[in-house]
């Protein structure tokens, strides 16, 4: 095969990252031995169908989470109280060091209590999972870390964007005097799914609503593939009946962007002089990615 043009962005970035943030910086990021063996409640709930969580397990989990929520509310209230008391002491022109340190200890104790309660909750949840479920969750965490799976934050962002698109679409229908009740009917399924933490299913509901809002876009005749290599259609395209707001459209487009893309984690520069200057200042080598004559910033390679 002749030397074709390189697809570095496809394969290398995550590995490059190891070097750029690791060996090059001489400060390899250590794996967190605690975090990798613990699974926050939202992760378990988000991936309940992936790990095959039973109804019984789910109920037990939700029960733990609800009781913990009350406890956390109480603990956070106490922390706030102790923090405010410390702030009062620090506000004085002349602060009594011993008193301030004693109060600071109280703040730290409350923080410790909160962290302890968090760990307790996570451990109780873990104890309700099977070894197979734990193994699957480890795999899921690893995929999220490498960008292969959407994180909870990304899922939530996508859901928010799609909800906004649905709202905009409904407003558009109302503005045109159309009856939005079919959308409302679909959306009735949304809240229960969200409350059950079934984000995938909830997103599918939003997609159904959005599909209905977008409406049929083409005549049947236009859906048929053209046999000739004609460059243009003979008749004007039929515009969708539904209103389209820029805000809803922009939200839908932005929802296509993942929250994290691994190759963006590398702080690529493009100015050679700047690179050489920093290389001299930091005493580090310069890694150059040369790709034909393309800058390959946020373009494909």
């Amino acid at each position, binding site marked *: 095969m002749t030397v074709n043009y390189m697809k570095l962005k496809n394969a290398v970035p995550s590995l490059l990252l190891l070097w750029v943030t690791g060996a090059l910086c001489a400060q390899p990021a250590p794996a967190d031995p605690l975090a990798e063996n613990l699974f926050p409640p939202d992760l378990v709930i988000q991936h309940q169908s992936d790990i095959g969580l039973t109804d019984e397990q789910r109920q037990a989990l939700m029960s733990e989470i609800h009781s913990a929520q009350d406890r956390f509310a109480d603990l956070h209230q106490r922390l706030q109280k102790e923090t405010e008391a410390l702030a009062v002491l620090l506000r004085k022109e002349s602060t009594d060091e011993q008193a301030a340190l004693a109060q600071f200890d109280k703040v730290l104790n409350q923080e410790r209590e909160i962290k302890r309660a968090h760990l307790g909750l996570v451990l109780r949840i873990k104890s309700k999972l099977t070894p197979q479920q734990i193994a699957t969750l480890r795999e899921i965490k690893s995929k999220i870390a490498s960008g292969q799976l959407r994180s909870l934050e990304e899922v939530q962002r996508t859901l928010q964007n799609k909800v906004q698109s649905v709202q905009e679409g409904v407003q558009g229908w109302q503005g045109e005097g159309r009856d939005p009740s079919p959308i409302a009917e679909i959306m009735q399924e949304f809240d229960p799914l969200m409350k059950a933490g079934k984000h995938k299913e909830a997103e599918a509901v939003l997609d159904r609503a959005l599909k209905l809002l977008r409406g049929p876009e083409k005549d049947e005749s236009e859906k048929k593939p053209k046999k000739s290599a004609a460059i243009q259609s003979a008749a004007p395209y039929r515009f969708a009946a539904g209103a389209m707001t820029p805000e809803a459209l922009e939200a839908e487009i932005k929802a*296509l962007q993942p929250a994290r*893309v691994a190759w963006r984690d590398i702080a690529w520069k493009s100015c050679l002089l700047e690179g050489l200057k920093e290389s001299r200042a930091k005493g580090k080598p310069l890694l150059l990615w040369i790709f034909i004559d393309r800058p390959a910033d946020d373009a494909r390679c």
Partner: protein
Amino acid sequence: MALKAALVNNPGDDEEGRLYREIARSKPAPQGICVANSAGKVLDWTLMFDDNESILAFFNYTLERFAKYPDARQPFSAQRHMKFPSSKLPDVPDNRLVLPIPDQHAQSCPANPRLPPGTIVARLFGRALDENGQPVADTIRQEHYVEDRFNLPVETQAALAQAVLNAGTNAFKMPDALARLLISHAFLGQLDVNPLGSPAGGKGDLKELALWVQNISSQHHAPTRLRVAGASHIAGAQDRNRPGKSNDGRIWEHDVKLTWDGLIDMHGGRITRLLLQARGSEKLKWGNPSFADAADVACLPGGHPIDLSCEVHYGILGEPVRVEARAF
């Protein structure tokens, strides 16, 4: 320090250009990974790696060489690998030239050329969808998630503005140059699989392009608001009538059918905002017998095998370049 150094293949004639030329002097190909020291002298080049572990081995090796040759005080050869560490190319001896490194650019930074005012910078995002219609979660491979960027020159915008004037409130076909520009970046995968491209032994074809525009402005908003809707179909494949020399053994078939909709805001003869999305289906086959079962990093120039057939969703956001902004 990580740098995307496009100008290694197209250096200027000034002091900065000479630094690029020095890096280019030892390049084994117009593409690759290069490690240089603080004087801009190349320590090592490689195009590929034996396996994933070899990447870190390469970086550790170059760090050792950097510790020995951090600047231009001692002569050293540029080492080169087609594939690290198994396939080594001849070293390129030091030319003993110590090039001055200017504190600032002769004019503006050549790696960040300025765009003419009024140019629209368009960013494209594309996702492959799974069987449930959700974006495939993997965002590493370009056949699953792609970002691209392109510019709409002011002349292209002016042609659209003229077409709007001519059409009044009637729907009209988008000027061809603009329509082609908008649809030509909506494909998954790397540059080589561009269904409108003509890679070795292949041919891309525009099967259908019908983007229609209608002025939907009301008195309630100042800019001219245009509604866009339409369809595109582009397809490329190896040309079976041109076997042999021009074909390096690659397998390439790419077919993208999309339905478009969106909005364009204009003020005078310039676009002020562009929002387009496209949904449809995409089929892509890419491969080469030489890929065999090799790791991705062992065949970086050719890419990895792809066999994709799925629904897709693209979005394009465009806005005028900021005065201080650069091309990228």
